[in-house]
C-alpha cells in the first residue's frame, strides 16, 4: 500500500513537472510561431513582415503578448458569463495534455510514458472542439454561433480520416505507444513510415489542416465572412488563450505527424530532439505555405472532400494495411 502511494506520488510529481514544462514550451513556441507565421506570410508576399520592434521585428510578438495581457476582459451583454469564460480554458487545457505522451527525444524527453499515447492525444485534441462550441454558444452573437457550428461539423468530419490514417500506422507497428512507433523507424528518410505509407501521410496532412482549423479549412473563423468566427467577442487573454490553443494544437498535430510518419527524433547522422523540432517546424512551415497559397474552401466543398475522398481513401488504405499486416 505504502509502495503504491509512493509510486502514485512520483507519477504525480512527474506529471506536474511535465505540465509546467509544456506550458513554458507552448508559450515560447506560440511566440516564435506567430512571428514565424507573419514573417513567412511576408516572404510569400515579398514584404518584410513585422520589422520595427526589435532587430528585424523579432520582439513583435512579445510586445503583442504584453499588450494582450494588459487588455480589459470584456463580457458582452446577454452572454452566458460562466460558459463564456470557461470556453477559452476548456479549449486550451486539453492541448497541454496532448503534449504529455509525445517523445521529444530518447529516454527522458517524454512527458509521460503511456501505452495509449495516440489515443490520449486524439481524445484530448477533440475536446478542443467542445470549448469552441461553448464559446460560440455563450457569446450570444450570430457570427460566433455560425463559427462554432462550422467548427463542430468540420472537426467531427475530419477526425475520421485522421483517426483512420493514424490507425493504419498503429496496425503496421502494432502499438499505440508513440515511443515504440518512433523506435520502429530508422534514421534515414527511406526508413520512415512516410516511405511505407505515403497515402496515409497525405490523408493525415489534409485532415490535420481541417482538425486545426487552418487555411484552406479555416471556416470556423473565416475573417471575411464571420469577422472572427467563434472568438469574435473575446478580448484580452480570452482571445489570447484561443490563439495559444490554436498554435499549440498545430504543434501537437505536427508532432504527431512527425512521430508517426517522419521518424520522430530520429534523423540522419545525429539522432536527437533537434531532429524532432526541425521536422515539426518543417511541417508547420508547410501548413503556413498552404495558408498563403490556397483560398478558403466553401463549406460544402470542405465536407465533400472529407466524405467523398478522404474517408473512403483512408478506409481502403486501412483495409490494405490490415490485409498486408495479417497476410505478409
Amino acid at each position, binding site marked *: 500500500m505504502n509502495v503504491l502511494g509512493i509510486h502514485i506520488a512520483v507519477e504525480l510529481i512527474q506529471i506536474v513537472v511535465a505540465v509546467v514544462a509544456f506550458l513554458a514550451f507552448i508559450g515560447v513556441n506560440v511566440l516564435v510561431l506567430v512571428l514565424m507565421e507573419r514573417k513567412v506570410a511576408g516572404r510569400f508576399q515579398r514584404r*518584410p513582415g513585422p520589422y520595427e520592434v526589435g532587430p528585424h521585428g523579432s520582439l513583435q510578438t512579445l510586445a503583442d503578448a504584453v499588450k494582450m495581457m494588459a487588455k480589459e476582459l470584456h463580457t458582452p451583454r446577454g452572454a452566458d458569463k460562466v460558459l463564456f469564460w470557461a470556453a477559452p480554458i476548456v479549449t486550451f487545457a486539453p492541448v497541454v495534455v496532448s503534449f504529455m505522451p509525445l517523445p521529444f527525444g530518447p529516454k527522458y524527453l517524454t512527458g509521460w510514458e503511456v501505452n495509449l499515447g495516440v489515443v490520449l492525444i486524439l481524445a484530448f485534441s477533440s475536446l478542443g472542439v467542445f470549448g469552441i462550441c461553448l464559446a460560440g454558444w455563450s457569446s450570444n452573437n450570430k457570427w460566433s454561433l455560425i463559427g462554432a457550428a462550422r467548427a463542430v461539423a468540420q472537426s467531427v468530419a475530419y477526425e475520421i480520416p485522421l483517426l483512420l490514417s493514424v490507425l493504419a500506422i498503429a496496425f503496421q507497428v502494432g502499438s499505440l505507444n508513440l515511443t515504440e512507433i518512433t523506435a520502429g523507424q530508422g534514421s534515414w528518410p527511406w526508413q520512415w513510415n512516410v516511405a511505407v505509407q505515403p497515402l496515409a501521410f497525405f490523408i493525415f496532412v489534409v485532415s490535420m489542416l481541417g482538425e486545426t482549423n487552418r487555411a484552406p479549412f479555416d471556416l470556423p473563423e473565416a475573417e471575411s465572412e464571420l469577422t472572427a468566427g467563434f472568438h469574435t467577442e473575446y478580448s484580452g487573454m480570452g482571445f489570447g488563450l484561443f490563439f495559444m490553443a490554436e498554435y499549440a494544437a498545430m504543434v501537437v498535430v505536427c508532432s504527431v505527424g512527425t512521430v508517426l510518419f517522419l521518424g520522430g527524433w530520429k534523423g540522419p547522422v545525429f539522432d536527437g530532439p533537434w531532429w524532432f523540432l526541425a521536422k515539426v517546424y518543417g511541417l508547420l512551415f508547410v501548413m503556413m505555405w498552404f495558408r498563403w497559397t490556397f483560398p478558403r474552401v466553401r463549406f460544402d466543398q470542405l465536407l465533400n472532400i472529407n466524405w467523398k475522398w478522404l474517408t473512403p481513401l483512408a478506409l481502403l488504405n486501412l483495409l490494405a494495411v490490415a490485409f498486408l499486416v495479417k497476410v505478409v
Partner: protein
Amino acid sequence: MVTGSDGKEHAELGKSPSPGLFREIRKALEGLWSLVVGLGVTGNQFYRPSVTVHYPRQTVDNLSTYRGPVELVPSDKDPGTSKCILCGMCVQTCPSGCIEIESHQEEEPDAPEAEGKAAAAGGEGAEGEKKAPPKKKKKIKVMDKYLLKFHLCSLCGQCVQVCPVSALRFSREVYLAGTSRSDFEFDLLARMRAQRRGGTGSNPGRGGSA
C-alpha cells in the same frame, strides 16, 4: 508520388466499371495537381527578394512625377520675382476658389537694372493702357502675396494649364503634414523666395502661414 498512389487505390475500388467514377477521379487528380502548381508559384515568390522600401530609412527616387501643391516659377531674369503677370486667370479658373492674390500698384522705375522686373510684371502693357496715366511713367502691378489655401485645393491643375506665362507648376512637395487648417494656407511668393535664399523652403507651411 502521393497522387500516384491515390489514383491506384481508386483504380482498385473501381471494380464495377462506371465511367462517372473514373471521370471524378481524373478531375480530382487534376485538381490535386493544380494545388501543387499553386504551391510552386508561391514557393517561387518566397525565394525572391522583398520589394518593400523601408520608408524612414529609405526613400523612393521616382518623385519627379509627383504633383504636389502648386508653386510659383521664378522669373528667368530676376529669380527673386515670379514670372506672374497678375492677370488673375488662375484665380478665376480655380474651381475650388483656393487662390488669392494681393498686389499693389507702383510707378515703373526707369532704372535700367529694374528693366527685367518691369518687363516681367508689366510686359503685356494692358494695365498701363487702361489706366492711361497723365504722367509719362506707367503704373505697374507688383505682387505682394500669392495665397494658396491648399486645404481647399483638389490638385486639378487647371491653374497650371490656364496660366499664359507658365508661372505656375506643380511642386514635388511630398512631406506635407499639419495639425490645423491654417497650416495649409501658403504664401507661394514667400515660399519661392525662401527656397531661393536657402533652399529651406521644403515645407511650404513654413514660408506661408503669415
